[in-house]
């Protein structure tokens, strides 16, 4: 590879380079300046901001980098397109929020002396995620997934304060290890059949007439295992409740939003570049007849949301309840993919933006309350509406939004998913989804019921958030309400972000 080509290729991965550099700077800074750990979060934000700048710079630019000599058409291992940039920007924005989130986390502040490690691991996750959303080579995908997973295993048990932390970490590791092993097996089968690991090159080979469809299906199910585990879809969700409950709330929030988004981005890219031949003018994808993704995804999504919602009904720990609720949301999100259309993909992107706002908001308030009361049990929320008026109202709005009631952003997210489903004439599936929403109403409203309708036996101490905390909540709360009544910018942004390289 000559120098000019290398420079050009490197320019494609500027955001990744910035994140790697920030990771190294954080580690070095931590080693050299032991006493100035306070500065590390700001370094992290600065690194993320620079990466964000380069990502925005890459918008409406398409290209493929690091092509091996054998690959025709110059399709390489890294793809830069609007779809990838959208998810990179999403991950970076969520990460910035997570840094501020960590400021208020007592769990993280208690381990202040290890702050450098904490942010190094967070950046490991971020790097894994942004490579994952732009990788178009199975090997690179696997490596990015492992980088993401390994960092998150450690973070899940980072605080070491309680046994639950270590339990969460270990469970996460075991489940993750098994599913990534299965995924690697699937990848090896695909490589054996096609002789390449590049998604773009696999596509034409899958259209060969004498293809063994059973083997392809087998391999794809194995690969889906690895992705299903990342997006916590049933039946690969078993780790979710335990890890979400055991991990520090910051990490739970991060996993439930960013890591899930990266998993979805991977799934979408895999399906679209490997299995779609062309997109019809009305936005529907024509799939290669090698593997029936639609059937698999319908079953998985219905199973996921039903299981998530019904199990959430019985939860008394709010973190655990939100874990099941995030499983259910994975199910709703999968519905956007089930329709295999541009409308569905737009709906997923819109949903992710809103989901990030409301889910982070809900977790943040639960953390603030847990900081004071030391509990996430729903019984301890009784009468909280009067003890913590601002937190109570904000949590109520986030939960209403998670339910999907107007005039909140959550409603708009669901609305677009429903529109995509009805447009694809999948009305039965839409009705199953709405029945699920009714079920979810019950457990979200149950929190409101405890906060506002039930009287507590003992008077509660007032919980007053600091100015910074109020500001952070408002950053999430105002858009949650605003996008409920005016969401055109987000929709436009999402519509511009569905283009994948080559499609």
């Amino acid at each position, binding site marked *: 590879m000559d120098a000019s080509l290398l420079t050009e290729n490197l320019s494609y991965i500027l955001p990744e380079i910035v994140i790697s550099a920030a990771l190294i700077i954080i580690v070095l800074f931590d080693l050299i300046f032991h006493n100035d750990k306070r500065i590390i979060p700001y370094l992290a934000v600065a690194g993320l901001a620079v990466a964000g700048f380069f990502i925005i710079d890459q918008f409406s630019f398409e290209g493929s980098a690091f092509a091996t000599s054998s690959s025709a058409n110059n399709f390489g291992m890294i793809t830069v397109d609007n779809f990838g940039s959208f998810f990179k920007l999403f991950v970076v924005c969520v990460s910035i929020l997570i840094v501020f989130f960590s400021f208020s986390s007592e769990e993280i502040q208690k381990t202040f002396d290890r702050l450098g490690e904490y942010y190094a691991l967070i950046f490991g996750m971020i790097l894994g995620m942004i490579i994952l959303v732009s990788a178009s080579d199975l090997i690179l995908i696997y490596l990015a997934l492992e980088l993401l997973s390994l960092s998150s295993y450690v973070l899940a048990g980072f605080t070491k304060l309680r046994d639950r932390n270590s339990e969460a970490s270990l469970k996460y590791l075991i489940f993750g290890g098994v599913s990534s092993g299965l995924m690697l097996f699937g990848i090896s089968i695909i490589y054996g059949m096609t002789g390449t690991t590049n998604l773009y090159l696999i596509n034409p080979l899958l259209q060969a007439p004498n293809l063994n469809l059973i083997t392809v299906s087998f391999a794809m199910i194995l690969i889906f295992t690895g992705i299903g585990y990342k997006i916590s879809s049933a039946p690969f969700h078993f780790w979710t409740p335990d890890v979400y409950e055991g991990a520090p709330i910051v990490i739970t929030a991060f996993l439930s939003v960013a890591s899930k988004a990266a998993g979805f981005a991977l799934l979408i890219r895999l399906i679209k570049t490997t299995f779609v031949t062309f997109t019809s003018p009305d936005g529907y994808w024509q799939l290669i007849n090698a593997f029936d993704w639609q059937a698999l995804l319908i079953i998985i999504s219905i199973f996921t949301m039903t299981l998530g919602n019904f199990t959430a009904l019985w939860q008394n720990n709010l973190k655990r309840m939100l874990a099941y609720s995030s499983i259910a949301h994975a199910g709703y999100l999968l519905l956007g993919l089930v329709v295999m259309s541009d409308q569905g993909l737009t709906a997923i992107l819109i949903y992710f933006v809103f989901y990030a706002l409301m889910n982070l908001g809900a977790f943040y308030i639960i953390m603030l309350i847990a900081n004071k009361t030391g509990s996430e049990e729903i019984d301890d929320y009784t009468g909280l509406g009067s003890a913590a008026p601002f937190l109570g109202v904000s949590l109520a709005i986030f939960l*209403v939004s998670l339910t999907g009631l107007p005039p909140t952003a959550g409603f708009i997210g669901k609305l677009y998913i429903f529109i995509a489903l009805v447009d694809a004439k999948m009305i039965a599936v839409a*009705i199953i989804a*709405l029945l699920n929403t*009714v079920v979810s*109403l019950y457990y979200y*409203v149950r929190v409101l*019921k405890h906060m506002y309708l039930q009287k507590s036996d003992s008077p509660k101490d007032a919980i007053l958030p600091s100015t910074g905390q109020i500001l952070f909540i408002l950053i999430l709360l105002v858009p949650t309400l605003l996008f409920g009544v005016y969401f*055109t910018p987000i929709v436009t942004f999402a519509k511009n972000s569905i283009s994948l390289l080559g499609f």
Partner: protein
Amino acid sequence: MENSQLLTYLLFTPIVGSLIILFIKPDQEKLIRWMGVFISGVAFVISMIIYVAFDSSNPAFQFIHKVLWIESLNVSYHVGIDGISLLLVMLTTFLTPLTLISSWKGITKQVKMFTFSMLFLQAGMLGVFIALDMFLFYVFWEVMLIPMYFIIGVWGGVERIYAAVKFFIYTMFGSLLMLVAIIWLAVYASEPLGYFTTNLLELYQVGPTIPNEIQYYMFMAFFFSFAIKVPLFPLHTWLPDAHVQAPTAGSVILAGVLLKMGTYGLLRFNLPLFPQSSVHFAPFISILAVIGIIYGALVAMVQSDMKKLVAYSSVSHLGFVVLGIFAFTTESLQGAVIQMVNHGLSTGALFLLVGFIYERTHNREISYYGGLAKLVPFFAFALLFTSLSSIGLPGLNGFIGEFLILVGSFQSQVLDSWWFTIFAASGVIFAAVYLLWMYERVVFGKVTNPKLEGLTDLDAREMFVLIPIFILIVWIGIYPSTFLDISDTSVKTILDNVINNTYNFFS
């Protein structure tokens, strides 16, 4: 039209008002109460201005205000009213200040949040009645659930939490079905129209052209949602819980306005959008309505709790409205519309009276009372007057509505059977039985319960709440044309549309 922003002013009066209330300190209860009455009073004045400027001979929607809201979905903020909406808008603006005044004594905790919720609720109800865009309609329809949930759940009776959750989940289930149907309709209509829209007036053009096998499903989805709200037998089970547990003001608004949203929805959406299905399902729905009339009355008869009795009587009375709608004659539809108003007034007044006496004794059991005529003569008279109005005594409002519905259903070509009228008419008799029987046990006889000694009669504030309602009850009873004229043209427009689209059936 030049006054086209009046409806927006009307809608935003309670919204802005509720926000103002948020900024008053919670301990300024008196100020908050007066603010609430003042704001809802302003809304009433605006609705009166609209009434004066309204042209009831014009079949089109009036006071239309349309602003493009969401480009990507082609959704507009689009409001406008016809005669039917105007009546219900006036009912809403009329009842809200009265209920606020009525709750001055009953609601003592968290007055600020209560007033806020009531005004927010009013905005939601007005929005439902004036929205001409399905998306906007759905938003208001859902937004209303949250304040109502809190009104029942925070200020309600002993079983309030159960009732609030049940109310929420029941209604939510129905409205989500409607959401799917709205999307389905809009997606379906985007083919003949060439673009996606949720504009009701444009969808009116497409609805009747949908082939029956699809239309039936869409009709059922809308119908199901509205039937839960009405509530139509057998979907009524949330109603007794919610009505009984809600505070007086909540019950009045629930019975007076919220239930009307269901029947209004049938008139505004089901009939014009799906005329073929409406006629197709009319006999089936009318059977449910008649069952509801009789079932509600019979269950009301055996209640020992006054508030429950009134709650079940709502099931019965709303059955009349639904029967009137699906009989498809001018008389029956006019009767249904005026009966919506009547029920709001009479049942609202009944709930108020039960609430007033409950505030004094903290007991709603019929057997607890007896001989109230001697103790509280004004109350006794008011209860008699309201009961008679609810029964349908000629000269009072209930008679007009029920008479028109019965006459209309008797002539109905769609139902084509006298049995509907005959069975429904028995509901009137049952109503006389349960209300007068309750009246006898509560008001007549000797004072058997020593705790009732020293009971005070209605005070000036309570009279002030009741007298406007009574004036309207007599007004509608004696000279109903004032009100029938408002909705006459609109009802005929809806009916003509149904007849034109189901020509084979009516010829």
